[in-house]
Structures are given as C-alpha cells and as structure tokens.
C-alpha cells in the first residue's frame, strides 16, 4: 500500500476545490444574469404591452389585475409568469402570441345556453394565476410565453381567423384568460365591432375593476367554481374562494351570460353537504337561472392517484342542486347521460336535445319553450 503515498500529482486539493466552487458560482451567476433578461429578449416587442392594471408601491410595482396582488421587483414576473416589470412599469408578455388556437364546439366549454351549436375560435397563451393540482392544461399553464411555441396572432388576425373558420364566437380559454387580459380585451373589442361574440372560460380570479372593464366586451362566461370551502380552494388551487364568488356577482350585475362549472374531485370536492351549501349560496344570490355543470374528474397532472368521480355522485350532486332551486343542472364528461338535455323548468319538455357536442333538437323559439311559452334564460339566437 506504500504506493498510495505516491499517487498524487501536482494538483493541490484545496485550490482545486476553491477553483471548482468559484467556477460553479461564476457559471451560476452568469446563467442567472442571462436569465434576468430584457423584456423583449425571448418574446418579441410586439408581444409585449404595458399592463392596464398596476400601481407603484414602495416595495416595487404592484399588479392589481387579480387578487394575488403580486408586488413585483424590477425584471421579475408575477405569480402568473406573464406580467413583468421593466423600468418600474408593468408589462404583459402575452399579447398576440397564443400557444394554442383551435376551433371547438361551444358545448365543449361548456356553454349550453349561449348560441348552442356554435363554433368557437379558442385561444390561450401560456401562464396562469392559479396553481391547481389537477390542471388539465399544465403544459401551458405552468410555463411562460417565452417557453412555449407560439402563433403570431394579433387581435385583428384572431378575428379574421375566426371569421374564415366560420366561427361566430371567440373563446378565451384553456389556461386562464385573466393572465392575458389585455390581449383578450383588445381582441374582444374588434370582434364585437365585427359582430362576433366573446366568451371566457375562466376561474374567475380577477379583481372587480378589470372584470367590469371586461364585462363591456364579453358576452358570456363559464366560471369554474372549484369548491365551496376556502381551505380546499387554497390547497387545491392556491387561491381564495371569496374573489371567485365576487366575480360571479359582478358578471351577473353587468349582464354577462353566466354558466358555472363544478368539477367534482373524489376526496376533495365531493362532499355532498358542501355541494348543497354551494347550491344554496347560488340560489340565495340570484343564480338559480345560471346553468350549473357538474363535471366528472379524471386523474390529471399531480392528482394522478385518485379514482374518477363516481357517476352516482354526480347524479346525487345534480339532485341536490335541483332541490336547492337551480333550474338547469347538467352533468359533463359522462357520455350518454340524460343530464345533457335542456328541459323547460315549467312544463318539463325537452327544449334542447343534446348528444355530445351535437344539438339534435331545438324546441325553442325567441328564447321561449315551444310547448308552454316559458322563457328559457340564455342567448339562443
């Protein structure tokens, strides 16, 4: 074993470790330096626009778009990943750069009482202001626009594409349209001018002021009411319940057609007492006409070790909703179930018969049931 003593060459251990650590630190700082990029480095200048809702505060720039109220320092982004500070001003980097653009039937959103059978031109940019464990669009929502492969679709182009695709509706959907507020708003203004309708599929986590501005151009909304318990909301999505309830009220006050989706997740949001409380709140606050969609959960994203929602639970939830006075209750993600049709709340006749995303029968004229003349809430023309 004597040869062990002779094994060392002329490289000193101490200096080597110091050099190694110094080089590592240098590389780290260099890479961080590169990461702390300019606003336009990774997304084009045309995809960057000054945000509409922000304030200056002593600690930095405060975004006032959503109830997260992020205080953002220079060159950093908010929780959504798309609102960045540059020269003490807040910019959005998701403008005209959707990463997904598809044509979908409006029933897929789901919106059942708003222009049934319409085709929607659906767009979304990367980023989200929530942190849902069951996100079904996590490949877009957990990244920022500078990490996705994007289309170049400025607002005018979106409207033109919608028209050429025979879509009468533009949907701001998939991730969370709140995060691309300015893009959605500008597009909606042009779409409205051209006679198209605008809809949002959202979690409704937005402050009242921007929401009221949106209401000027949005025709309909489907809001995810993920739970009716603040603690569950926080654990499941990282946000609070109350701002979402406020959103529902503001949308209603401003005449935006509203439908609500409740995804029933086993062991998270399938407590029937809680579902009853939710339905009670909805009827007590004047939402009994707002269609309520109970949707079946399938294992997704980080909630991968759960069973799907039992179909029986969805029917029980639907019964509870009806008992509590919700007039239009639907069940989603269960093909062939009998809770897809719209029935007249007065005479019980089927006014819209659906199968999947197809409308089989419309017994409705001027928004009224053909059988009894009862007004069916919604936009059916």
């Amino acid at each position, binding site marked *: 074993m004597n040869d062990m003593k002779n094994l060392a060459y002329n490289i000193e*251990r101490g200096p080597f470790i110091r050099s190694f650590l110094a080089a590592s630190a240098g590389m780290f700082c260099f890479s961080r330096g590169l990461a702390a990029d300019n606003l336009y480095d990774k997304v084009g200048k045309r995809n960057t626009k000054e945000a509409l809702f922000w304030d200056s505060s002593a600690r930095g720039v405060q975004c006032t778009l959503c109830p997260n109220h992020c205080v953002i320092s220079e060159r950093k982004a908010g929780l959504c990943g798309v609102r960045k500070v540059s020269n003490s001003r807040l910019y959005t980097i998701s403008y005209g750069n959707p990463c*997904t653009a598809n044509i979908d039937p409006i029933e897929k959103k789901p919106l059942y009482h708003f222009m049934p059978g319409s085709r929607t031109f659906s767009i979304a940019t990367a980023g989200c202001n929530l942190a849902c464990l069951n996100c079904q669009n996590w*490949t*877009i929502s957990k990244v920022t626009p500078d990490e996705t492969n994007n289309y170049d679709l400025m607002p005018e182009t979106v409207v033109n594409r919608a028209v050429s695709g025979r879509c009468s509706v533009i949907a701001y959907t998939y991730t969370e349209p709140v995060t691309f507020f300015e893009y959605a708003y500008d597009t909606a203004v042009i779409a409205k001018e051209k006679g198209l309708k605008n809809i949002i599929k959202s979690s409704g986590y937005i402050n009242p002021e921007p929401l009221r501005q949106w209401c000027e151009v949005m025709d309909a909304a489907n809001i995810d009411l993920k739970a009716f318990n603040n603690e569950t909301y926080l654990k499941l999505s990282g946000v609070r319940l109350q701002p979402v309830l406020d959103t529902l009220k503001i949308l209603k006050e401003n005449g935006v057609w509203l439908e609500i989706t409740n995804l029933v997740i086993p062991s998270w949001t399938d407590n029937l007492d809680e579902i009853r409380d939710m339905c009670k709140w909805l009827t007590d606050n004047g939402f009994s006409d707002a269609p309520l969609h109970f949707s079946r959960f399938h294992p997704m994203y980080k909630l991968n070790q*759960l069973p799907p929602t039992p179909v029986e639970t969805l029917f029980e939830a639907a019964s509870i909703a009806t008992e509590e006075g919700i007039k239009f209750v639907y069940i989603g993600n269960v093909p062939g179930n009998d809770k897809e049709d719209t029935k007249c709340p007065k005479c019980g006749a089927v006014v819209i018969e659906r199968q999947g995303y*197809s409308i089989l029968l419309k017994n409705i004229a001027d928004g009224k049931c053909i059988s009894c003349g009862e007004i069916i809430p919604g936009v059916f023309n």
Partner: protein
Amino acid sequence: MKGWFSKKKDRVNTDPRIGLSLFIIGAVSCSIQLLFMKEAMNIAGGNELIAGVFMGTWLIMSALGAWLGGDTKTTNLRSINLLFSFSPVVSLLFLLVASTSFVHPGETMSFFKSLIFTLVITAPICIASGYAFIKLVELSVLVNRSVPGKSFAMETLGGILAGILISIVSSGLVNTYLLILLTILLSFSFTILTFFIYDKRKKTHFRIFMALLGATLIIINPDLLIRNILMGGVDIVSTKDTPYGNISEGRYGGETNLFYDYRLVAYSNDIMEREEDIHFAMLQDRTIKDVLLISGPLSSRLKELSKYYLTSVTFMERDPGLIKIAEEEEEYSRSYDLNIKNIDAFNGIKLDSSKYDAIISLVPPPSSLSLSRFYSLEFFKNAKARMTGDAVFLCAPGPGEDYFGDEATKLYSSIYNALKKVFLNVSPVLGNKLYFIASDGPLSVSFSMLSIESGIENQYVNSYYFIDELTEEKSGQIVKNIDKKVRINRISNPIASYYYQQYSLSKDTNRITIALTIIVLVFALPVIAFRRKNIYMYFSSAALSGFEIIILFMLQITVGNMYQITGAVVATIMAGLALGAIIGIKSISKIDIRKRMSGIALYYALIALLFPFIVSIADKKISTILIVSLSFLPSIFTGHLFRELTINNGKGKATSNTYSADLAGSAIGFILISAVAVPLLGLQLTIILLSLMLFMGIFVGSIK
C-alpha cells in the same frame, strides 16, 4: 473498547457472533432495501430516475452511517444489534407518515418531494446499517483479527442470499409489507435470542411468542391495512404484489377501481377511454378478423371488440396478477376465440406465429426503460411481421393535451419517427390520450364518418362527439409539429424514456434545484468529501454499478426479459465483490491502482467495441452466460480495491470512509447511467462513458 468488554458474556477472544451479525445486517438491509425500493417506486412514480434517487439516497445515507460509525467509540455488540433491529421499524413508520403527510390525497410526488421522501424513509435503516457495519468491522479486526475485506464479504454474502430469497418470495408469493414486517421480526428475534436471552427455556418461550406474532401478521394481512392508509379515501378491498408491481382493487362511491402501482388502470363507466382504445383502430377496416390486444383492461375492451365480427382475439399481458383478474372478469359469450397469454408481449410477439389484422397496444406510456421497449423500432418491426397486408397498429404513448411542449414533442417525435420507419402511414389522433395509428394501408381519422359507415353503435366515438374537420385538423397539426430530426426510439437507445422523464420533470417548476442536486451529487461530493485514495473507490464503484445496468440491458436485447435474470446479475456482481474483498491477490496488489483502473477502463472500452457482436449471438444460453460473466472481472477488481484500501486500516474511520466512497459511488453510477446516460447516449456509448468515468477517477484521485 469499554462497551465491548463490559458484558460478561461478550468477554471472549474470538466471537462468532460478530460474523453472524454482519451476515444478518447484510441480509436484513438487502431485504428491506429491495422491498422499500419496490414500494417507493410505486408511491413516487416508478421510473429509473426514481429508482436511481432511491438507490442514491439509500447508499448515501448508508455512507453517512458508516462515516458516523468511524467517528464514535461505541463497541457494545448488543447495542449495535439492537439499534439496527429497531431501525427498519422507524423507517416503516416514517414511510407511512411521510406518504400521508407529504402529499395531498391522490397527489403523485414531484421529483423534489420524492427526493425528500426517500431521504426520510431510508435515513433510519441506512444510517443504522452503515453505522453497525463499521462498528462490526472494527470489532472483527480487534476481536477476531479479521481483515475488513472478510467482514465486507460476510455482509455481502448475507445480502446475496437475502436478495435471492426476497426476489423469489416477493414475486407473488408474499406481499411487500408482510415481508417487511416478517423481516423485522426475524431481525429482532436474532438480536434478542443472541444477545439478550441466554436461558434455554426463555429462548423457547420467546421463539413461540415470535412464531405466534408472525402467524398473527400473516392472518391480519397488514398490506391491506397499510394500503388503505396510503390510498387515503379509497376503500382498498384487495391487494396483491406480483413480480412486476402491486395490484390493488378499490371501491369509491360505489364504483370499482383497479390500481396498478397506485395508478388507475381500470374503472367503472370508462366509456370514453375504452371506445377510443378500440375503435380508433377497428373502424379503419371493416374486414378485421383477428386482433392482438396487448395489455390494458381486458373485459371492458372486449365489450367494444364484440361489436365487430371477429374470428379471434389474442390478449398478451406479462403480469400474472392482471391475467388472473382478466380471466376472472371475462364473462361474455363470444362468437370468436379468445386466447389469453401470460407473456411479455415484447417476446410474445417474436415467438408468436399467428397473423393479425389489428394490433392494439395499450401498454402504458414509455415512463421507464422497460415500457420504452414497446415504443421502439424493434417492437414495431416485430409487430409488423405479425400483421397481414394492410393491418392496423395502434399505441397510446401519452396523454391527450391541447398543447405539446418541447419535451412532449420530442417524446412523440421519437416514437412517430420509429413508426414511420416501419409503416407507410402513421396518423396521430388526439383523444383523451394521444394515439398513433399506423398501417401500410390507407388511414382515416374521420371517426364521425367511419362510425356512420360501419354501423357500429358507440356512445362516444361517433358523430355526436367527433367533428371530422376538427379531428383531421388537429391530427395534421401534430404531424406538422413532429420533429423529424429527433432520434428514433430503439431498444439500444431508449430515448423515449428519457424524454418521458423530461416531460414528467417539467411538472416541477423548480428545475434548477433538480439540476443543481444532480451536479453536486455527481461532481462536487467526491472531490470535497473523500480523501484521494477513496476517490478511486468512488469512481470504480460508480463504473461497476453503471456496468450492472448495462449488463441488464444487454440481456434485455438478447434474452428478452431482463427482470427475470436480475437476481443472477446482482448475485454474480456481489459474488465477485465478495471474492475480491476476501482474497488478497499479491500479483494484483503490486500493480499501481491507476494502472489497474486504466486496465478496467480499457476492458469496458473493449466490450463497447465488441458490443454489436455480443448482442448478436444467436444462442441464448451462450449469450446469457457470456453477458452475465462480463461483470465478474470488474467486480473482483472493485472488491479487491476495497480490501486494499482497508486492509491496513482496522480503525473504524478509515474503513468507514472507504465504505462510504463505495456506497456513494455505486449510487451515483446507478443514477447517472440508468436515468441519463443510457436513454440519452444509448448502450454502446454509455459503456465508453464508463471508461471515461474511470479515467476521470484517476485524474480527480491524483489531486493532492
């Protein structure tokens, strides 16, 4: 040495109990390691990266224990054994607490959480075993005048025997948690009977008590209780461990769900999934008569296949547990023949002589190297060889998403490109999963039209849910996004599993932490932590554990099923290590360590050079013996290195440092080779990387 001589019974010149204790520590550690790893893989996601993380943390924690052992003066044999016997109980409790408190109900752990989780559950047993081993080596040197290499060999022997035994009994005979508890019981029994009870009558009473306790454990079925805790909320009504995983049947809200390694594989009201699985392929051709179905829930898929006029359906599934369930559930009166084959379809398709009009592969996505085989060029070629002229092939390599990021695009490109090499036409279909349908004949994704034309009555795959124009557009978009330059997924270069890991890791927002963790583990740790001679140990062990992975994959290519031969490979390597550690070969010792390392590096390089020849040997027996024996030489070298580095260092600290270096090196080798190098570089280049690893060891070890 006060502790050692403090008890009257211990006051002997040589003590066989030290050797026995070493054997028991090796056996119990190895058993618990295998069983915990199986379970941690199930809980945390089950790919090579998770296995690597587990092995890594296991060995690093053991190294920590060994290091602590070298620093403490305790030499009380009773205390050492008692401490070790308690440790798996604490680990088991930690596992139960961590898996219910670290994650929300139903949540799959992120990589970072998996890392913390494995650290927490491995810490008690590993620190205790590393610590106990070093103390016993120290005692062995002092009391039995034995060289550390012999102690190492004794512990290794325990590990080999327990490893073989556990491999046999855990392959479907006894469930995991029952085995863990029985192992703990045996470990306690040894400690109590050897060090605490000396009276014969009391010993008999104790034996009877432990036997009754063991019988009670068997009767109460602890696996069912524990899995009910782990699957919070779901009522687990039955659970069974098979050679490949755990199958648990659960009830929730009146519906039945079947979980395989905690992932849902079958459930009630699965209309959307089962119709997509079957009809995307079957609607392509109205003349399909013979179908090969690979994996997936059989009974619900047969419901859909029964809508067609078929002659035969062959079902291949490697897991006997799933086959049993399929046979029990299969109750439909059929107008066609049903052949259920319990075989790994990768081999099954090669051995089969039948021809099929459709092959529907419902194997899960390529999240591991094993699953990646079913998305390889070789598998697609073998499948095509079993297909009639314009027959249809279907596979589902991942979930259906509205947007495919870079990781997903590369993953699907590697599979699409492989399919394109074999079939004239390949069409992606975006359903609840992403499907690829392939054929030499024409393909259509206009399922609305196809379902109307066929007259097949579906609840979901029909004109009400599928708008042909949109389905075609989406399929076209996916093809447009396919990167033709991405390498083809092959058996020898399983790039799909690497991309799948990248895709899974992209769920973690803190990727810098992951990268830094790996970098620190691989490079910084040995330079900072070990003295230079132990750096040789570190890199030699890393290269050997990496070579172990290579051997397994070479067997996968040649023999077909590496999992059945794993025990033989591990036993050969451990035997080589034990032999090297126990026998001092003077002629070897005379050669400079760096020269010897260079020799082994050249040996690896030679194997890399001969790789194409070795894997092409037609005789399976010869190739198996040859490949398994390839690991013998480097394992003897590594064992001998351990002996040399510890032979004149009976003092605990030096031995513990060498042992720590050995364990940490093995861990890094395992992670680096299985999770990164093999998927990224392929087998042949990875063998060369082992050579480079040894040369790097020579360089780093040469730093003063």
